[in-house]
């Protein structure tokens, strides 16, 4: 009954979305306020209806209603409650429902909090947003309906893939989708602005908080996925350039570029046309990601051909919104006024470089991901494009980006003083060079480029701090003046500081763990000791145990540092009950230096067990850096929240004394 109610609510939501597409847009053209006003209640009721559908499905999961096909295929009665709930989005149909739910949350948020938007703009934004919702609701109902019943109902379900029964993973999709889907707002604003034929700095001010929120969630979503892969997949890899990962990484790159170009537009009214294009492209890449993940085109071109319904449907959605958006852009962009002038060496110029490099990186990942499919489709030739390709092409693009990163925020708007900025960054550059030389002198293991990578990370971190300390006149003014300045600095400046600092940490983490990782693969017998990463690890044996829904063999390792026992690690091999599937659980000991990472393998015929032992130096900087970026985004957003209520025209506002970030 509850399930049918949810099903019905989902159909109703689709009808509401259809109304929300047509009436507000027509009202905006006809200047009919009553028609435009339909958008708000429609967006809110759409959210309520989709939420009803979503929680109806969750109810079916929690009560293990196996008469629902989706539940029977993906759940099991003995599964822990949290994974029953998370199981809702652990499958295709349910995750599409989550997709439209988040889409509706964003739409309703614009309806409720966008009071300061010009009425026609708001009506058009909500109309475009509803068009996206309509497309995906149709997709859900026609090809991926989660509410289909089974008769007779099976006695128990198939279970959720045990490797996915993990807290980080359970909450990874909602974060990731919030990021993906959040960019739809930027898209809707871009289309609405093109329809309006007018765009100004105020537009950028309205779009930035949404873009920033989406970016934050995508950042944390991607890093959660990476963190999960690191500890769950059993060998400490954290990024694989897998098409599924690339699918989320492309919108992140484009979204990061959008965040920066919208900044130029808001502060200087420049790059308007480009920002609009970028907003369209960023969401298109989100759709592309959805297509890549959802269509099955990944598994192989052939499996796509076998059941093309879903793939073709999403492809049609992708073509409609990308193609339609770009066509409208081509028609209208030339009418857009261009804004403030600037010299190549200026804050604006540095942000153009940022955009150029990020967009090139996104294009490289896109082409690399799709090339094998395209080539096979066109010529039948099968090639692979894997991590070595991406490392080789993506890496060089990041080098100039990192080198320019601390310089950009220090350049003045319009016309910057590059030699002056370089001088101010001398300390950062010197610190980085000293560290680089020290690594060269002390360590000969890693690739010769590695010390340079670490130095780049340090330079970025130091640059962020220098920029901040200059702005608060640290060391130049008295203590009370410094404190006053630190307090009065806009929160968005702290956001920039943290985000850039986090990037530096991320780079250091990536480089040190890739270049200086220590690895041992060997057979160990009980009582044997291995020296790894400054620890002495003694293998004491293997025992069997039983968890809530699995059996396991776990090894026991005594970890000593300087002769003192500091911890015991118990990496294990599990066999889940339903579906019966083996997984490995690594034993990890984290310290500030890095992670000791132990994995137990099979018993060997000559006695003993296969063991893998790693030391991953500074590996946590990767996720810590991402977390700091996320926090930076949040702080900046809390500033923006106040500014969202800014006057309609940005120009009318009183010039701010503090130089804008």
């Amino acid at each position, binding site marked *: 009954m509850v399930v049918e109610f949810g099903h019905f609510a989902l159909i109703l939501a689709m009808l509401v979305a259809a109304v929300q597409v047509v009436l507000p847009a027509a009202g905006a053209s006809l200047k009919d306020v009553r028609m435009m006003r339909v958008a708000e209640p429609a967006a809110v009721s759409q959210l309520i209806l989709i939420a009803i559908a979503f929680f109806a499905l969750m109810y079916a999961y929690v009560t293990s209603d196996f008469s629902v096909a989706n539940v029977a295929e993906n759940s099991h009665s003995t599964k822990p409650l949290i994974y029953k709930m998370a199981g809702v989005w652990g499958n295709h149909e349910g995750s599409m429902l989550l997709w439209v739910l988040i889409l509706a949350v964003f739409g309703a948020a614009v309806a409720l909090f966008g009071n300061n938007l010009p009425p026609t703009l708001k009506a058009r934004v909500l109309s475009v947003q509803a068009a996206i919702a309509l497309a995906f609701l149709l997709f859900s109902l026609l090809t991926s309906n989660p509410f289909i019943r089974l008769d007779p109902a099976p006695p128990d379900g198939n279970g959720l893939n045990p490797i996915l029964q993990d807290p980080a993973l359970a909450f990874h999709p909602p974060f990731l989708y919030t990021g993906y889907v959040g960019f739809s707002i930027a898209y809707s604003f871009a289309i609405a602005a093109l329809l309006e034929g007018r765009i100004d700095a105020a537009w950028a001010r309205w779009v930035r908080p949404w873009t920033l929120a989406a970016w934050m969630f995508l950042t944390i979503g991607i890093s959660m996925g990476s963190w999960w892969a690191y500890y769950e997949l059993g060998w400490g890899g954290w990024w694989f350039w897998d098409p599924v990962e690339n699918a989320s990484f492309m919108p992140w790159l484009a979204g990061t570029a959008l965040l920066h170009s919208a900044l130029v537009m808001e502060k200087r009214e420049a790059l308007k046309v480009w920002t609009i294009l970028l907003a369209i492209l960023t969401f298109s890449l989100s759709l592309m990601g959805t297509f890549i993940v959802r269509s099955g085109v990944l598994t192989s071109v052939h499996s796509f051909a076998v059941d093309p319904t879903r793939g073709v449907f999403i492809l049609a959605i992708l073509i409609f919104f990308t193609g339609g958006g770009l066509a409208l852009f081509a028609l209208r962009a030339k009418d857009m006024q261009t804004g403030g002038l600037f010299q190549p060496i200026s804050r604006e110029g540095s942000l153009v470089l940022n955009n150029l490099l990020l967009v090139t990186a996104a294009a490289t990942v896109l082409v690399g991901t799709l090339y094998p499919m395209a080539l096979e489709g066109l010529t039948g030739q099968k090639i692979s494009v894997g991590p070595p390709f991406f490392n080789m*092409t993506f890496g060089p693009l990041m080098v100039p980006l990192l080198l320019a990163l601390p310089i950009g925020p220090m350049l003045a708007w319009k016309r910057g003083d590059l030699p002056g900025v370089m001088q101010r960054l001398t300390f950062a550059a010197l610190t980085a060079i000293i560290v680089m030389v020290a690594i060269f002198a002390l360590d000969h293991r890693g690739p010769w480029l590695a010390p340079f990578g670490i130095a780049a990370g340090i330079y970025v971190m130091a640059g962020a701090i220098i920029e901040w300390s200059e702005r608060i006149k640290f060391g130049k003014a008295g203590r009370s003046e410094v404190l006053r300045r630190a307090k009065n600095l806009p929160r968005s400046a702290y956001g920039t500081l943290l985000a850039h600092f986090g990037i530096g940490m991320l780079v250091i983490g990536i480089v040190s763990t890739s270049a200086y990782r220590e690895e041992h693969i060997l057979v160990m017998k009980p009582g044997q000791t291995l020296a790894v990463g400054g620890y002495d690890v003694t293998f004491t044996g293997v025992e069997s145990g039983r968890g809530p829904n699995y059996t396991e063999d776990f090894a026991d390792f005594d970890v000593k540092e300087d002769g003192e026992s500091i911890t015991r690690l118990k990496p294990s091999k599990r066999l889940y009950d339903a579906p019966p599937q083996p997984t490995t659980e690594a034993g990890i000991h984290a310290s500030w230096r890095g992670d000791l990472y132990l994995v137990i393998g099979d018993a060997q015929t000559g006695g003993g067990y296969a063991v893998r032992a790693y030391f991953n130096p500074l590996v946590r900087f990767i996720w810590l850096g991402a977390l700091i970026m996320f926090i930076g985004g949040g702080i900046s957003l809390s500033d923006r929240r106040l500014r969202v209520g800014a006057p309609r025209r940005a120009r009318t506002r009183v010039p701010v004394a503090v130089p804008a970030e």
Partner: protein
Amino acid sequence: MRRLFALTVLALTIFANVPAGYAVQPDEMLANPVLEKRARTISSELRCLVCQNESIDESNAPLAADIRRLVRERLTAGDTDAQVKDYLVARYGEFVLLKPRFELSTLLLWLTPVLVFLAGLVLAARAAARQPASESNSLSEQEKSKLAQILGDDQA
């Protein structure tokens, strides 16, 4: 398959068949550390043919283990790294290479970063050239911003 599922997380869980354990086994490894290191490097650039997007170095599949042994056999026999790869390409096709060779069919793939970057640079330069002559130094900041506004408004 392990790799694909790194993030499939979101998705294709129904088809998931993630093997436990890990790739290179202790008994496969060569005694000579230099050769073994070369073998590992080569392995990380070869695709496990029956997996989604995994190198033979990471894969648990029996075929990957066979190819790992093959790589080590060739290296022990005195092949260069390039010869080992050529041998495997002759046997399994270009598909086995995770880093495609630079040739006609992969031209666009390899040149994408360069082409996109240059195209962007040209577009940016052209947009800059279209801007009215740059502001004179003698104008004050206020005058400049005012001028910029006027120029901007006139351009439509």
